[in-house]
């Protein structure tokens, strides 16, 4: 399929380039999320079996087949387990495929990981960035070629993200992969990504696109039907960008959005859409379920159970999508339904029915058991008469006779469910107690739903300790936990997260209940109704009720700005008192600017404000001394200020800011307006043109607003005459 006959010279060059540098990939073996808890408290997500094979093997097998030559596996949570697994696997022994690990104990986000990798100086050219929970069979050649060609023309094209058409329904994202709906704007010709909204920030009924986007692009495609595969082709700059912007944590929410909003550096992100190949990321239990089914239904070929792509066991594909390993003890009366995988060494009792499920190795399934849509890992014992529906059952679990798992249940490692006990829907059971909220202060900082941390040392060390002390501790916890999961059971039922049931069903392996489905769609409609109601009164133009929406955001913006101003002031004062270097202040102010989403004009205004405030706060008796203070401060810091005065606009902003100060906050300056203006002019902070532009702008203002213009009349006249003489 991937016929790449480098017809033109450009193509050949690109291929040559490809050959020169080994193709590298970064595989993040930590999702920096908590969606697979409680399972991930004991085993890292990338080692969880997906159709009886650890997820990371899918990712590595794909990278190898796609021509990647060097992979850096970044391990953080349970790093020892990941490294041990890789050591014992065959991955370290592949020809032309070098796998090495990078370990960290304190990274809490993808951003931290990339900053650490940057410091190691291991990446030499364009690289593939994926997480260890990616299942794909896409060829990379075409995407890489496009990326490199764009790079050669435009050095700012730093990243290409892979997207895929998802099924054409308004709620596909939620019903299929359990992820938030995604809105993207893409230039249809250049494939440049112009807008990205993966999480409805607030439940606004509209998407706001900057009108300026249409200046450069005659046409923009807006998509709600694409899926982000989280496979990125990056240039080395991506790593340094993460280092420069130390507040970037999340790949999409911070990095992608940061670059899209930042029009100063002009970095660009492009998309590559795949059509016939498969790519998806296991983000939560729902996508675990969906992708498992895709694998069983062979969408991911050649990564399917009966093809040995890595030490997995010989499995035979039988009729109706049923896979059976070579040694399965199957009772004659057991019924194995379609799309089911049975692992090696598993025995199944009589009259047991299994359908749409995956059963691991060495499991013992009793008689009269019904298993539907479940994922049963290794060494699980299911006694007679159990009923399991849409559940995940981890290694070593024992279900005593007659126990029932309702849809959405998750049993973590070695849990024992007592006789006849019914595990309620969506409940999660673990031998470990649910961490109390205070245990992880840091988590709160990033715990907005998807980017919590597993990697904090206290937790990641638990499993090791657990293994050591398991024998002694077990009886203890057995006694305490016994009552929670029935007679003779062992395990704690975790209380549900903040969202309670509300959120659980979204990410569960169980299908979305019909009433929820209706609800999702209704919310989509409701959002529209809210936005429309105000629109009905008097839409002044083709726009949606700018008034009603803008009022809020305007106020927010003002609030934001005053916070921003305070923070800039604090930063500046710290710089003054602690003698911080200018470069560092610039870096800090820039990061403030990004986090408040303001422009460099705002920075200029805020910095100038801080300086003038400093001058007026410095003790003085007479206005003359105040002017002296101003002169001292400005002379000392003008270099810093100049850094933000890149154009006339910013300089005018400074004058306007000063006017505002004179009128409102610092009336002391009122009589000194012209003197200070003159000073700024003499110090080359402000050019003559800015002053003249400001003056002409003010010319049209109301009389009351011309106070300072009149004060400065003579100065402006002098400037005018001076410029005329020059002519």
């Amino acid at each position, binding site marked *: 399929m991937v016929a790449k006959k480098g017809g033109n010279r450009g193509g050949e060059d690109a291929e040559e380039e490809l050959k020169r540098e080994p193709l590298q990939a970064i595989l993040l073996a930590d999702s920096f999320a908590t969606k697979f808890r409680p399972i991930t408290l004991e085993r890292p997500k990338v080692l969880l079996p997906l159709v009886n094979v650890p997820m990371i093997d899918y990712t590595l097998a794909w990278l190898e087949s796609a021509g990647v030559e060097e992979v850096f596996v970044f391990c953080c949570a349970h790093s020892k387990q990941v490294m041990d697994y890789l050591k014992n696997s065959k991955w370290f022994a592949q020809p032309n495929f070098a796998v090495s690990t990078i370990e960290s104990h304190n990274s809490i986000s993808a951003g931290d990981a990339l900053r650490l990798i940057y410091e190691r100086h291991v990446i030499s050219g364009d690289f593939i960035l994926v997480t260890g929970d990616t299942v794909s069979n896409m060829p990379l050649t075409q995407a890489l070629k496009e990326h490199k060609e764009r790079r050669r023309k435009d050095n700012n094209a730093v990243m290409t993200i892979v997207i895929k058409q998802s099924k*054409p*329904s*308004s*709620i596909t994202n939620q019903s299929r992969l359990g992820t938030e*709906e995604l*809105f993207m*704007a893409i230039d*249809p010709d250049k494939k440049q990504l112009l807008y990205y909204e993966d999480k*409805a920030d607030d439940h*606004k*009924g*509209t*998407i*706001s*696109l*900057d*009108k300026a*986007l*249409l*200046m450069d692009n*005659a*046409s*923009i*495609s*807006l*998509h*709600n*039907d694409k899926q982000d595969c989280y496979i990125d082709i990056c240039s080395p700059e991506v790593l340094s960008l993460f280092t420069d912007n130390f507040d970037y944590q999340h790949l999409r929410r911070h990095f992608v959005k940061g670059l899209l909003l930042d029009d100063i550096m002009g970095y660009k992100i492009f998309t590559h859409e795949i059509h016939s190949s498969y790519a998806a990321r296991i983000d939560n239990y729902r996508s675990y379920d969906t992708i498992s089914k895709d694998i069983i239904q062979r969408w991911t070929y050649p990564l399917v159970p009966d093809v040995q792509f890595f030490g997995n066991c010989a499995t035979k594909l039988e009729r109706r999508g049923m896979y059976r390993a070579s040694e399965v003890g199957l009772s004659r009366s057991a019924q194995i339904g379609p799309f089911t995988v049975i692992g090696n060494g598993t025995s199944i009792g009589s009259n047991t029915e299994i359908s749409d499920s995956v059963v691991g190795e060495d499991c013992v399934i009793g008689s009269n058991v019904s298993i539907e849509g479940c994922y049963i890992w290794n060494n699980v014992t299911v006694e007679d008469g159990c009923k399991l529906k849409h559940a995940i059952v981890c290694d070593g679990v024992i279900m005593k006779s007659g126990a029932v798992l309702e849809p959405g249940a998750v049993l973590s490692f070695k849990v024992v469910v007592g006789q006849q006990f019914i595990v309620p829907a969506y409940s999660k059971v673990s031998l470990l107690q649910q961490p109390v909220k205070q245990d992880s202060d840091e988590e709160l900082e990033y715990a907005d739903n998807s980017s919590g941390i597993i990697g904090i040392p206290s937790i990641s060390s638990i499993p090791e300790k657990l293994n050591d002390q398991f024998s002694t501790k077990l009886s203890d916890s057995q006694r305490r936990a016994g009552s929670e999961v029935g007679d003779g059971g062992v395990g704690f039922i975790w209380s549900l997260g903040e969202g309670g049931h509300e959120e659980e069903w979204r990410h569960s392996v169980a299908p979305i209940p019909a009433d929820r*489905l*209706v609800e999702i*769609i*209704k919310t*989509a*409609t409701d*959002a*529209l*109704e809210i*936005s*429309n109601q105000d*629109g*009905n*009164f*008097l*839409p*002044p*133009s*083709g*726009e*949606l009720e*700018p008034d009603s*929406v803008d009022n809020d955001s305007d106020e927010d913006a003002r609030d934001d700005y005053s916070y921003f101003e305070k923070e800039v002031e604090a930063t500046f004062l710290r710089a003054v008192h602690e003698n911080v270097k200018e470069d560092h202040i610039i870096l800090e102010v820039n990061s403030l600017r990004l986090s408040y989403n303001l422009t460099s004009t705002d920075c200029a205004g805020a910095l100038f404000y801080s300086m003038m405030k400093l001058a007026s706060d410095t003790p003085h008796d007479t206005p003359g001394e105040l002017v002296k203070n101003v002169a001292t401060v400005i002379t000392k810091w003008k270099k810093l200020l100049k850094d933000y005065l890149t154009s006339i606009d910013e300089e005018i902003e400074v004058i306007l800011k000063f006017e505002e100060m004179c009128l409102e906050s610092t009336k002391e300056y009122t009589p000194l307006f012209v003197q200070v203006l003159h000073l700024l002019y003499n110090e080359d902070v402000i050019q003559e043109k800015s002053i003249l532009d400001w003056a002409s702008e003010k010319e049209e203002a109301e009389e009351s607003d011309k106070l300072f213009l009149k004060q400065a009349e003579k100065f402006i006249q002098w400037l005018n005459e001076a410029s005329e003489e020059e002519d």
Partner: protein
Amino acid sequence: MEPARGMDFQVVVLAGGFSKSLVPLVSKEVPKALLPVANRPVLSYVLNLLEQNNVTDLIVVVEGETAALSASSWISKTYIDRLHVEVAAVPEDVGTAGALRAIDHRLTAKDILVVSGDLVCDVPPGAVAAAHRRHDAVVTALLCSAPVSGPSDSGSSGAKDKAKKPGRYNIIALDPTKQFLLHIAAGAEVEKDIRVQKSILRAVSQMEIRSDLMDAHMYAFKRSVLQDVLNQKETFQSLRRDVLPYLVRSQLRSELMSNGVQSDENGNSKDAMQNSKILPSQLLANESTPSFHELYALGPDGSASITRKTHKCCVYIANKSNYCARLNSIQAFSDINRDVVGVANHLSGYSFSAQNNIIHPSAVLGSKTTVGPQCVLGDGSQMGDKCSVKKSVIGRHCRIGSNVKVVSSVIMDHVTIGDGCSIQGSVICSNVQLQERVILKDCQVGAGFVVTAGSEYKAESLAKKERP
């Protein structure tokens, strides 16, 4: 094909009145509709277009009594025995929606075709009507590519450095099949952000936002819907700015047809519930694939658990080779005059000479006077010796002296031009007198004005003081 009449369309031409943006070209005597394009009132282009498409009955709405009178007398003189035109006068500044509200009682057909009187185009209105009927839309708008201002034309002169300002055109969102209108806003009126409704995007799953299309102001409306909106939304003034965006915005949450007016039209009264039940079979009967509106109305998985009312807003996008422009600014006036004798000369209705120009047989040219290609010289006009005319339109009964240069300009009727004048990129209205050696560049001279000898103007608007 016999489009408009056979399909029970009523045609309304909104001819405007005394348009402020066209001062000093317009005056009490010459309302916007009668401004000359290649020596013919601009309104004649729309009327001829309709006539060619077999429309014989139409209503022309003019703002202001005086303007209505002059338009009416011109129409009855010109189109006698050809068209049956009713001229309706409405108060000034009521807006396009207001104008239709004022003639509400005259609207009776199932669908209404509303055309702006300042439109100069060659897109058959039948095509718009057909698209409208095909989708059973509530509104169908004609969209054109940005006007062809003759870049293909080798000799066309400057004055086109205005280039592409996105503010000039509309911001329009279409579905991938380019049949449905999902969002519309005037580029100039969007402050900073384009706000697109997520619910519409969800329903259609992909939309294309473009800034290279122009709303040509030719709309087909479902009459009952139009009347409902005009009556219910009393504050709506403009079709383009209020009515159309409103219909587009509410297409998935229709508030229309609630009072059953629409069902009467179809002869079969069906309420909303029945309506949704009939839909699947209707779809099979009418269209091969249902549009996103129907799918949305059906709810998820085709289950009619939630019933929604939707309506369709369609577009007809004119072919790139079609000419389409609106005379709504002075720049547009010059452009259209240039184009109608240039790149779009099939619209002029004249047959051009071998030199690609039109010189009326009764016009008199002095010796060594040249009239270049893409020029028109009206009947009874006289020119002195050694004159040169390039890419310009000169009206009737003008008296032009010797050594006069006219380049890329429009000169209306009864203009007197003295010896040695030079006129470039300008518009000279009727009865103007230019004395000797006047030099004008990019100017507009209002009717009856006198420019004194030897004066020189650049980019100015000259007109008599308005008498109270």
